Every structure is written in structure tokens, then in C-alpha cells.
């Protein structure tokens, strides 16, 4: 039982990171129907920016988090303007391939500049740990979960209470109608990319603290798993992404805790295929009917 609770604690902290990344996927997919493969790499760059801010500028956790979020937001908008905007009216496959291209470009440009070696994060938070019974919760996990929850509440506020959020929801329902209503569609899409990327940047810093090591290809797997999380929760749905992220995190820690940790990636993808076959719209997604 204690081991199970411990796995749940680990799963929830890992899952909050997936949830933060999944939010970016789900928002971008909701608004322009694109699997932004480069999202995992924005997260990687966020981790590096956090690393630079803490190691070279000796900043603390929160300044590093904010710098990383701002820089990633800028990067996200830049990627959208350069790579995705010219393809707004192209076929879905063309845009998807571009996204894969951007993803590879970010990875290898980063590798070219910082080298392929793994770097270790400086210790930012005290490694104080709380013992509740036999379950150990350390300070980093608390920071991760609290930061993630705070950011998600902020996102809910932006999406549901502000004018920009209303514009985002309108564009995701019907782009052309939104444009006719005077919503600046391009600006709204850029804003969506900015928020999504900022969240990925935050996730990058949190992962750096939690796992203590970063490398230029670290974004591929978490990126894909976060996408699985977004699909599981119902793509386009923000609460869905949160639930999906937590579920994938817990699934992964349970598989590596009780089964073979080598199979944890396979388990996530097997889970994805099962969801896609049984309930392709996800937990909270809407069913869309095919029209001719």
C-alpha cells in the first residue's frame, strides 16, 4: 500500500509536467488542427534557458521559471510565424511534415550550439523531504505540483474570463465566422502558441529540477507522451489535457514500479492505440461527425 501511494505521488508529479506540455498541444490542436511536433522541443529549449539562467546568471527558481516562460513564448510565436503561417491553407499532411521538420531543426540547432552531452541542473530547491507514514514527498515534487496547478488556474482564467480567451474559443470553433465577427485570427493563433509554449517552457524548468539532467533530445519522448495525454483527455479540451497528463504520469510510474521500466514507453503507446480505437474523441472530447 505504501509503495502504491509512493508511486502515486511520483506519478502525480510526473503527470503534472506532462499535463503542462499537453495543454500546449491541445490548445494548438484545438485552434489550427495541427499536431505541433515542435512542442516537445520548445520544452527542451525551456529547460536549457532555465539552466542558463540559474547556472550563469545565478538566478533563483522563480526568476528562472519566468525568464524561461517568456523566452519560450517568443520562440513559439516565431516558429508559428515562420513555419506554420505560410501553410495555413495547405493540406494537413504538409503542415504535419513541417512540424516534424521544425522539431528536428530545433533539436539539431540546439545540439550544434550546446553539444550533445547531458548537463546537470544546479540544485535550486532544498532537498527537504516530508515523511507521511512511509511515503516520502520531497520539496521538488511539491514545487512541481503547485506550479503546475497555479499555471492551470491561470490558464482557465485566461481562457474563460478574458477577451482574448473568448477570441481563442471562438477561433477554435469556427475560424471563418470568428474572422467575420472582427476577431483578429492571426493574432489569436499567435497568442495561443505563446501561451502553449510558455507552459512548455515552465515544464522544461520543472523537469530540469526534478530529473536533474537535460540534453538536446530530451523533448522527443515527453512531447509524444504529452500528445498521448492530450488525446486521452480529448484533444482540444483543457481540463481533458490535465486529466490526461496526470493519468499518463501515473500509468508510467505504475508500469515502471510494478512491471519492467523498459516497457513504460511501450505501455504509453499501447494505451494510446487502445484509446484511439475505442474512443477516438477522448474522455472529454466532442464527437465530430464526418461531413461530405
Amino acid at each position, binding site marked *: 500500500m505504501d509503495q502504491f501511494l509512493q508511486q502515486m505521488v511520483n506519478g502525480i508529479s510526473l503527470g503534472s509536467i506532462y499535463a503542462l506540455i499537453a495543454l500546449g498541444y491541445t490548445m494548438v490542436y484545438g485552434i489550427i488542427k495541427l499536431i505541433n511536433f515542435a512542442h516537445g522541443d520548445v520544452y527542451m529549449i525551456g529547460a536549457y534557458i532555465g539552466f542558463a539562467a540559474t547556472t550563469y546568471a545565478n538566478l533563483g527558481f522563480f526568476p528562472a521559471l519566468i525568464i524561461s516562460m517568456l523566452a519560450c513564448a517568443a520562440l513559439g510565436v516565431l516558429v508559428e510565424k515562420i513555419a506554420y503561417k505560410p501553410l495555413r491553407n495547405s493540406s494537413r499532411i504538409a503542415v504535419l*511534415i513541417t512540424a516534424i521538420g*521544425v522539431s528536428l531543426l530545433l533539436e539539431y540547432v540546439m545540439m550544434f550550439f550546446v553539444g550533445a552531452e547531458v548537463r546537470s541542473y544546479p540544485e535550486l530547491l532544498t532537498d527537504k523531504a516530508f515523511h507521511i507514514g512511509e511515503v516520502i514527498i520531497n520539496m521538488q515534487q511539491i514545487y512541481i505540483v503547485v506550479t503546475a496547478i497555479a499555471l492551470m488556474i491561470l490558464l482557465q482564467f485566461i481562457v474563460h474570463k478574458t477577451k482574448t480567451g473568448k477570441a481563442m474559443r471562438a477561433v477554435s470553433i469556427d475560424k471563418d465566422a470568428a474572422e467575420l465577427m472582427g476577431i483578429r485570427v492571426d493574432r489569436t493563433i499567435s497568442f495561443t502558441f505563446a501561451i502553449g509554449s510558455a507552459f512548455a517552457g515552465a515544464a522544461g524548468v520543472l523537469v530540469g529540477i526534478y530529473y536533474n539532467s537535460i540534453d538536446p533530445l530530451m523533448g522527443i519522448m515527453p512531447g509524444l507522451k504529452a500528445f*498521448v495525454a492530450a488525446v486521452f483527455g480529448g484533444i482540444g479540451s483543457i481540463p481533458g489535457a490535465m486529466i490526461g497528463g496526470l493519468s499518463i504520469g501515473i500509468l508510467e510510474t505504475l508500469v515502471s514500479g510494478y512491471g519492467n521500466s523498459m516497457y513504460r514507453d511501450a505501455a504509453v503507446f499501447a494505451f*494510446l492505440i487502445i484509446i484511439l*480505437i475505442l474512443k477516438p474523441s477522448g474522455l472529454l472530447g466532442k464527437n465530430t461527425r464526418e461531413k461530405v
Partner: protein
Amino acid sequence: MRVLTKKNIMILGSILLAFAIVQLLMSIGILNSFYQITIATICINIILAVSLNLVTGFTGQFSLGHAGFMSIGAYVCAIIMMRIPSTYGFLLGVIAGAFAAAFVGVLIGIPTLRLKGDYLAIATLGMAEIIRVIFLNMEITNGAAGLNGIPRFANWLWLCFFTVATIIIINNFIRSSHGRACISIREDEIAAESMGINTTKHKVMAFALGAFFAGVAGALYASYFYFLKPDLFGFLKSIDILVIVVLGGMGSITGSVIAAILLALLTTFLQSFTAVRMIVYAAILVVIMIFRPQGLMGSKEITDLFEFRKKDDRIE
């Protein structure tokens, strides 16, 4: 249908000529082992790209898991060849590898091909990743360390034979009624279905045939490079194949062939700058999608350009 038309004889002649020239250059030593590896890579990549083109370019089913099928062919062939180290063992391995890949293709294709577009891409990606993890944990594949010392029987003759065979079979498939059904699925699935085409059957058929030849390519790879490990067949390998198809033009077999040759030459040229190579690759992908999304050849074949002239003659 006559088989020995003037066109077919010319094609056969030029294949034999190309084969003889390369064989001659190899035997007198102008093409050293470094270039021979490049040629082997070109042949294997042509098989991979043409077979992926059947799935993605002609049938319109976006697959990101081609490397998974390649790895099945590679491992099956390697395991058989290490037991029977002879040319028969090699041929048996290629055939068994190809059928194993096709079998897994059918098995995976039936449930996943109900999905469309992005979802299918992610599902196939996940499936390739699962195959990789399974090979990573199996006893017979020697896990992450991989198989070493696979006997080398694939030479230029076999590479050339299998490449030509792949191109001819896939080309004929596309020009058959099944192939036209596949193309109609790409153009409009709902319309194809309402015309009475069994879309699931044809999608699975194309997927299995693509997997079959990916298995052949994997088997040739195993036998030529005598070393295998699961990491060779990751996500990036699938992307590599996809880049060739996209660069050549989705729906153009000759396009895939040309792109496979161009990219292999580029790789050879950038050999000493490994870091830059991937950046160039990625940049090519993005730039092509923005400025020429249909790829080098679009959906045209090289032979279309010649036939164009013939039509003009007829009008006169």
C-alpha cells in the same frame, strides 16, 4: 498485354547497363568500399521510400512507423542467417523477414487504419516504438547491445535485384485495379467508399505490401551492415524515410528514387559534418513544405515527361 514492348525492353536494357557499369567500376576499384556503402544505402533507401510512398503517397495513409517494419525484416533475416550462413539462408531470411513484416503490417493495419490523418500518424509512430521496445527486451535479439557478426551475403547483385523487383512490383500494383482503388481512397475516401470500393481492405493491402518491402529493405540492411541494434530503427529512421518520400514527391515512384539518390549523396558529402547534416535535413524539409509542398516531382513520373512528347506527335 504484351510483355516485350519496346518500352519494357529499353527499361530492361538500361537496368542491365547500369548494373554492369557499377559492377565494372567496383571490380576495377574505382568505387572503393566507402562508395559501395553509399550505393547500398541508396538501394535500401529506394526500397524503403518506394514502399512508404505506396502507403503515404498513393493511398494517402500517413504512416510514421515504417522503421518498425524495417526492423522486423532486419531481425528475422539476421536471426535466420546466423543459423544458416549461406546464400540460401540469406534468401530464406529475406523472404521470411518480408512476410513477418507484412504479417505484422496486417495485424496492426486492421485496427489502426480506421484512424485518419494525424491520428493514424501518431498510432503508427507508437506502434513502431512498441516494436522497438519489444526487440529491446527480447532474448533472441540480444537486447540493447544488438546482434553482431551477421554474415554478409547481400552484395550489389542482390541489392540491385531487390531494388528493381520492388519498383516493378509496386509500380504494377499501382497500375492494377487495386492500385487505382488505393489512389481513389487518397483522393476522397467517402467518394471511393460510395463507389463500392472496400476501403479497409485496400488500405490494409497497401499497408501490408508497404510493410513487406520495408521488411525486404531491413533484411538487406541486416545482411549488408552485419550489425543491428534496436536504436537504429527509432523515430528518426522513420522520419528519414518520410523525408525521401516528401522530397521526391508523394505519389511519384521515380521521385522517390531520385530523392533517395540525392539525399544519400548529400549525406556522403556532409559525412564529416554530422551535426550540420541533420540541420540541413530539417531545413530542407521545412523549406520544401513551404515553397514546394508537392516535392520535386509532384505526382508525376519521369516517364510522363517522355509520354508528353509522344502525345504531341500523335496530334500532328
